[in-house]
């Protein structure tokens, strides 16, 4: 499988009720910032905000399902949360290969999630390994 520096990838993710409720059911994080609109408004947000780590699920999907090979494993990833994400937000995901390490079959991506207002809500880097 050929990957090259500068290769770009994009996906669109929707933070749907299904994803939001599923995250809460599985991980039990019912912090009022994520479940109580008034609480979140009192903290300066427009509404209850989504769990940032839901985006890590989207990253997992991108690496596991969207690349042109299934022979992949995540070595490491970092994420910075820049702006709040709200229920039903549509997020534009963009990733680019910024490093290829043939000696150890590793690839590094930079990525970002943007909302409809073109605000970056999260960005970071992921390093993956290509399995033989």
């Amino acid at each position, binding site marked *: 499988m050929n990957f090259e520096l500068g290769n770009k990838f994009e996906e669109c993710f929707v933070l749907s009720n299904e994803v939001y409720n599923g995250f809460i059911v599985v991980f039990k994080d019912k912090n009022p910032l994520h479940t109580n609109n008034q609480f979140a408004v009192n903290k300066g947000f427009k509404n209850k905000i989504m769990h940032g780590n839901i985006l890590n699920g989207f990253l997992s999907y991108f690496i596991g399902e969207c690349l042109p090979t299934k022979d992949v494993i995540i*070595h*490491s990833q970092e994420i910075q949360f820049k702006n709040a994400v709200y229920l039903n937000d549509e997020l534009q995901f963009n990733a680019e290969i910024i*490093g290829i*390490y*043939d*000696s*150890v*079959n*590793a690839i*590094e991506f930079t990525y970002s999630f943007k909302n409809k207002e073109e605000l970056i809500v999260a960005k970071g880097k992921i*390093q993956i*390994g290509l399995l033989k």
Partner: protein
Amino acid sequence: MDRNELLTQIKTIFIDILDNEELVIGETSTANNVDDWDSLTHIQLVVAIEKHFKIRFTSKEIQSWKNVGEMLTCIKNKGI
């Protein structure tokens, strides 16, 4: 770069990747006598070293290393 300085820089990378401030490594160190130096951290070490020195190794080079000293020699041979 002086070999001792190179070892110092390599040690800093090992400390960061292996997350061990007390780490002691020398030219004879191997994955067998350095705690937590396993196959996954080895990949992270190689990537970090390639980034730090802006060099690239081949898989053949990596497989030839028997200890940190041979890693240093390989780096030196790339003009560092």
